[in-house]
């Protein structure tokens, strides 16, 4: 019966193409707008590392201004300074820990055939790769001594390796970064966690850096931050060493704490560290150190903006308005076919069978509207892409979202069609047969 009802629905749509197109267009518009905002929203609120998000913690120490919190409500800074980072790195409580920041280099490939180019780099301790499950094509990260011994090693991303070495296995080869020779130890896959949770200071949806170098090189090479650097008090900074010793915050710090016991031990460790620093005249604010897991970290940093939430709500309201219009059009369509409905009732159709027939037609309209909506959503996402370059990664519909779009189109149109279908099924056949 479903196949037959689909056949009848298709005939009915073709019989009145203008009305059908109006309804399909209305659903398509609603779904298109909804899916555009829902796609952006879903990817904004995506858990970028679900397998580990509950054991990875952003470390925050409240070294900020005694008169004013870094953020409301009473939030400690999201980055650390050099001195504190050095102290925390000495702890062996976390399973893994990472201190890092965003920098950059002028890259020159060995044969000098290509012109040099500027590449963003992440300067990081070695645990970065294992802690964040970074996949490698060739080689791997560097060993622990590299962070201490100031070895000039580099891990390239696939894109950089393609550009400099034509995609070949470049492990062991060298390239120049700011005119210094670095040896390649690994090449990562095309790894793009979205949002870029481990460094939300420099754009929640920014691309990962193009290469990685050891954290130990900061001092000898005087590596500068390409990201945000913040301070709360005037400080005399005349040299790179002054900068490292200042209260300026510019480093991201993450710890992998696999269980509650380890987390509590680490919390006690950082609290104790801050207490000791207070004795030295630092940390003027009350104790307020935090360990925040990935999901909470994205909430604290408002990765999903209020604008996005409002837009999502508005887009569903728009869909509701479209559906209300469809209710009217469907009523007009079904009541316009009351003669046929009366005939079918006279020939033995139950009210339920009439409702089913009409709802199949509504469902077909919904599905066609869903397909149109997907096309409009693709266009809408291209528009988002043009407007917001940072959201480039967000503007793609995956299979799951395609199904969601069709599901929303189907379910919402069926809901909109319930009343008209019910009204049509309740028509008394006797009075309508003469006029058929």
């Amino acid at each position, binding site marked *: 019966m479903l196949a037959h009802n689909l056949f009848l629905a298709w*005939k009915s749509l073709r019989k009145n193409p203008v009305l059908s197109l109006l309804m399909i267009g209305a659903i398509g518009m609603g779904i298109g707008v909804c899916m555009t905002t829902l796609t952006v929203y879903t990817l904004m609120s995506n858990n970028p590392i679900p397998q580990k998000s509950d054991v990875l913690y952003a470390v925050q120490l409240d070294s900020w201004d005694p008169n004013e919190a870094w953020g409301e409500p009473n939030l400690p800074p999201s980055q650390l300074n050099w001195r504190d980072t050095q102290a925390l790195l000495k702890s062996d409580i976390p399973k893994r820990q990472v201190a890092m920041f965003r920098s950059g280099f002028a890259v020159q490939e060995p044969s000098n055939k290509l012109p040099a180019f500027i590449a963003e780099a992440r300067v990081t301790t070695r645990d970065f790769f294992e802690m964040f499950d970074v996949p490698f094509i060739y080689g791997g990260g560097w060993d622990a001594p590299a962070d201490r011994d100031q070895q000039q090693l580099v891990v390239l991303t696939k894109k950089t390796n393609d550009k400099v070495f034509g995609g070949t296995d470049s492990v062991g080869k060298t390239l120049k970064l700011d005119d210094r020779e670095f040896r390649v130890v690994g090449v990562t896959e095309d790894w793009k966690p979205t949002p870029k949770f481990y460094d939300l200071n420099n754009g929640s949806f920014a691309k990962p850096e193009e290469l990685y170098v050891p954290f130990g090189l900061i001092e000898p090479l005087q590596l500068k931050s390409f990201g945000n650097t913040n301070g709360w008090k005037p400080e005399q900074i005349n040299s790179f060493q002054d900068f490292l010793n200042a209260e300026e915050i510019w480093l991201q710090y993450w710890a992998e704490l696999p269980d509650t016991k380890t987390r509590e031990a680490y919390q006690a460790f950082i609290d104790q560290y801050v207490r000791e620093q207070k004795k030295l005249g630092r940390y003027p604010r009350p104790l307020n150190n935090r360990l925040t897991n990935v999901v909470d970290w994205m909430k604290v940093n408002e990765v999903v903006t209020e604008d996005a939430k409002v837009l999502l709500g508005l887009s569903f309201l728009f869909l509701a308005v479209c559906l209300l219009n469809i209710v009217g059009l469907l009523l007009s369509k079904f009541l316009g076919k009351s003669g046929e409905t009366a*005939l079918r009732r*006279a*020939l033995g*159709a*139950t*009210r339920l069978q009439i409702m089913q027939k009409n709802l199949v037609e509504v469902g077909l309209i919904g599905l066609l509207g869903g397909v149109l909506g997907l096309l409009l959503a693709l266009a809408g996402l291209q528009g988002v892409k043009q407007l917001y370059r940072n959201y480039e990664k967000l503007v793609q519909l995956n299979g799951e979202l395609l199904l969601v779009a069709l599901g929303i189109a189907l379910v919402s149109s069926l809901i909109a069609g319930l009343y008209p279908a019910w009204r049509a099924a309740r028509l008394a056949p006797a009075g309508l*047969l*003469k006029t*058929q």
Partner: protein
Amino acid sequence: MLQMTHISKVFRTDLVQTHALRDFSLNVKEGEFVAVTGPSGSGKTTFLNIAGLLETFDTGTYLLDGKDVSHLSDDSRSRLRNEKIGFIFQGFNLIPDLSVFDNVDVPLRYRGFDGKERRRRIEGALEQVGLASRAKHLPSQLSGGQQQRVAIARALAGTPRILFADEPTGNLDSLMARQVLEMLEEINSSGTTIVMVTHDPELARRAHRNIHVMDGQVSDFTDFSQASAARDALAA
């Protein structure tokens, strides 16, 4: 086959009450061909709608094929209509965008027959009305008489126990009207009970019995089968 006793039906609006049927009693035997006549507004159509289970009534009892249908649910009445009743309307009431085949198929699908059985019945019914070669045509491609024959085929395909015809020749010219009437007589002669509402006295005379309805009540019976038998006896 059809036994109505003291049926009444009142249509109410905020201002007016219209007694469409009052104390209406009628008994139609199995295999009869009954014509129902009467002026406009006399209650013929209301009677036909109630008899065809398209309308409920206020008081009285109604037995259809021995079953009391006075208090049946809407679903049960739909099923009974589908299984026991065939309708033929003045305006043919074919679905314009369905082919002849698909029009005849409509009640069979609601009956739940499988595809093979439906095809057998549709082809048989179209054969019976002489339209087997027009199965793929749309109603608009047929003459009025042919359309009414499709409607008859649709009514016959479900092998109903009783056929209700509402002015079945009202929209046809005299030649086509005669053909349709002959077809109804043939159907009746094979055992199907027919109740036909008509304005046309000539048409009514072809039935076994003529029931005249006036002001919602049966006002007169004429038994043509007995008159015909008497005529035959005199002639002999």
